[in-house]
């Protein structure tokens, strides 16, 4: 049944939100965001199977490309943060306020 796949997608998305709000380690927060993107991909592909049309799979492909771009930029920011402050705490990003 397609609804089992969509339920799994909801569970994974909720776990991603929980990871973002409960953790302060910048890597874990980043990977939780990736988890939410993957849950969205699973929903896209489930609906693509439900309607027997491949447009959902192409949207999932686009999401993967955006995730790759996001990974490269986010990791560059993390390296800068570690070089200047020496910590991996998301609270340190509050210094970005003007």
């Amino acid at each position: 049944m397609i609804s089992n796949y969509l339920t799994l997608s909801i569970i994974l998305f909720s776990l991603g939100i929980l990871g973002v709000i409960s953790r302060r380690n910048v890597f874990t927060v980043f990977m939780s965001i990736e988890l939410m993107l993957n849950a969205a991909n699973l929903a896209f592909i489930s609906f693509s199977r439900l309607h027997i049309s491949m447009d959902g799979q192409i949207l999932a492909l686009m999401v993967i490309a955006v995730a790759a771009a996001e990974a490269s930029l986010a990791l560059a920011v993390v390296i800068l943060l570690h070089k200047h402050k020496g910590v991996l705490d998301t609270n340190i990003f509050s210094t970005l306020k003007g």
Partner: protein
Amino acid sequence: MFAELLFFGLAVMAVVGAIGLILFKHPMNGAMSFVVTLISLAGLYALLSAKLMFLVQLIVYAGAIMSLIVFIIMFLNIQDRDLPDEKGRGMFLLGGAVIITPIAWFLHKIVKSLPGSTTDILGGGFGGVKEVGLLLFKNWLLPFEIVSILLLVALIGAVVLAGKREDGK
């Protein structure tokens, strides 16, 4: 029957990997746990007859993006003392779960009301490289080009951000 068993096995593996990601203290353990989730998701894509997405998930996501993340985690050489102390973690986790569970339950009810469809493996090239490629370059050409520009911007941005070298070093 066999496909349903496979689905439940892969789903349990995906959820366990995600729970490990948000509970492990060290990001390296979290990353390894997240790889389990990604590989199970690739299996689920194969069960949904998305053959190209199965390949892309394994090669690009579990291969390239995760190896980049693991490389950076090892590059920074994170010790236990570098990690932020997360004292209120359990409280935030509990509070977040209390808020999110009703929303997820509501969404689950919506999903249950969808017209059920069997998930047999479709033949006839559904989700294959040729079919998805033809659709991508016919109907989705402009979004594809925009994504290529986005990747170029990310490339330049990463070089500008991380490639800076301070004077005197």
